[in-house]
């Protein structure tokens, strides 16, 4: 399968702080990849660098064949239609209703008539498990989990090839989180959607992830299927998975 995302030798410094010290990996089409790492290891920063919201100190990011760090605004705008991003707290536009939020990318980037956008928005809402009535509400009236779903619907509005998720299941109840996981997996399987997520959720990791990349002290310390990463003897990884191990055994 073709490579859709390639991160090469990323170095990020904030003043004297070295956040990334040579991070490299590649993601192929259709993969569901999770980036894990302790707090402050620069996961979200890396995510922002991948989609061009921040610039690494050195190194390069190639997303769908475009060099993100060295592209002009026009090229980036073309690229932005081809990926979706789910921000951690949803980042919904608070002055618009839920339905209008989802309609924004459709109105801006497609020539669909309004008569088609309205039912499509309703469908996107039910696609992420919300009732179409939600469309009339404002983001302020929604719970955290609902905001996340609306944000996912907005990220999916343009039928992206790659979906970036920043901690998609944090703040959701376990049922909602698993439903979210299986939705992501289904979309990935049926659409060939590539998913790249930052997550702390071990259940997500163990259920829907093809590949896990672990970040620690600015470097990739493990990269592979979850089972392989779990066997790594890096102290942080051992601690990360052992925090969960007793539970796991209890439930099996």
């Amino acid at each position, binding site marked *: 399968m073709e490579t859709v995302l390639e991160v090469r030798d990323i170095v990020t410094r904030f003043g004297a702080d070295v956040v990334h010290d040579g991070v490299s990996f590649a993601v192929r089409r259709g993969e569901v990849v999770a980036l894990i790492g302790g707090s402050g290891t620069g996961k979200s920063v890396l995510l922002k660098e991948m989609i061009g919201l921040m610039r690494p100190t050195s190194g390069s990011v190639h997303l769908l064949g475009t060099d993100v760090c060295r592209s002009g605004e026009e090229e980036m705008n073309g690229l932005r239609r081809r990926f979706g991003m789910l921000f951690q707290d949803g980042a919904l536009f608070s002055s618009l209703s839920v339905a209008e939020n989802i309609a924004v990318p459709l109105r801006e980037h497609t020539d669909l008539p309004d008569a088609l956008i309205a039912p499509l928005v309703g469908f996107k809402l039910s*696609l992420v498990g919300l009732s179409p009535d939600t469309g009339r509400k404002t983001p302020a009236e929604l719970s955290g989990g609902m905001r996340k779903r609306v944000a996912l619907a907005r990220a999916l509005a343009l039928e992206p090839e790659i979906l970036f998720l920043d901690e998609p299941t944090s703040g959701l109840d376990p049922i909602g989180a698993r439903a979210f996981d299986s939705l992501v997996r289904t979309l990935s399987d049926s659409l060939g959607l590539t998913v790249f997520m930052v997550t702390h959720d071990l259940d997500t990791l163990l259920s829907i992830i093809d590949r896990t990349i672990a970040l620690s002290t600015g470097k990739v310390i493990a990269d592979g299927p979850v089972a392989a990463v779990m066997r790594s003897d890096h102290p942080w990884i051992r601690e990360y998975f052992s925090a969960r191990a007793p539970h796991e055994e209890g439930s099996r």
Partner: protein
Amino acid sequence: MAEAPCWIAPELESGANILYLQGRWRLAHVPGIAAEVAALRLAGDHCVLDGSRLEEIDTAAGFVLLHRLAELGCIARTVEVRQMAEAHARLLTLVRERMAAPSVASPTRHRGAIERVGHAAVLVGRILRAQVSFLGRVGVELAALLRRPGLFRLKETVSQFETVTLDAIGIAALVTFLIGIVFAYLLGVQAQRYGAAIFVVDGVGLAICRELSPILVAVIVAGRSGAAFTAQIGSMKVQEETDAIRTLGLSPIQVLVVPRLVAIMTGLPLLVFVGDLAGIAGGMLIASLQLDISPTAFLARLHTVLPLKAVVVGLVKAPVFAAFIALIACRMGLAVARDARSVGENTTSTVVQSIVWVIVLDAIFAVVLQRLGI
């Protein structure tokens, strides 16, 4: 068989509707697909979707197709799928499962002009009532402060005082200086005709100290600090910081409102005094340039004609204006809903309310003081 731009080819094979889906069914092509699908007619409510010529399909395109088929009476039981890539079939199944929903009704209702005006009036009443109740709450907290002075947050108050007062000295002085110039100039042009140029000193002194400086400085502070208070407290509300304050057993009024109230009430009279000086300086400049009244003569005349009470009245008005600005700003901040838009709306509302109240209060002062003969 029709070529490329044709997305769907219906055929009748042994009594069954066969729909050949062809090409790349992607969002970019949905308008074309929708047009073709809308023109689709079926014999009966049974159909078979043939995916052998389908290259790609996404949820938007799949939805458009299934939505139309549902309109034609083809529901899950009567739609079959054949020769379709497994991924495509799975996607269509997903779309069918999730599309049971009716479309969303129009989200916002537009208000007519009369309704808007009425709504605004009702809102003013509601704001006034909330304001009175907030005043009561602040009063209770201030009373608590009298019993336990230890609750007072000196550090926060001082830091608020610095931003409200010290940082505003420049702009307050500049504005009143310019108004002093304008006022002295306009007055001077009139007074000169009657050979009464020296009376400009009386006019400038009285007008600046009693009315212009208090009002202008209060308006500046309302726009500057009032807006800042609402925005600060409002974004804290959005981040649930005010809830955190309450949970830690503290009172948001004690922590957020009282320091700002005290800072602005002590700061505004000082700014008004600075404004008095700057305004008179502006008048003095014009008097010497335009009317040949030397600064010495100006000050000598000012000393005899400007009653102390005019200055005092101006300085006494200031803390009252300040209290209204602080209370309005803090209440609007605490009344912010959990979204960014509401912070902006309330900030605007703070500035408007504060300025209106400053002018209303000034009118009340004018009438009352007149009656009292001050």
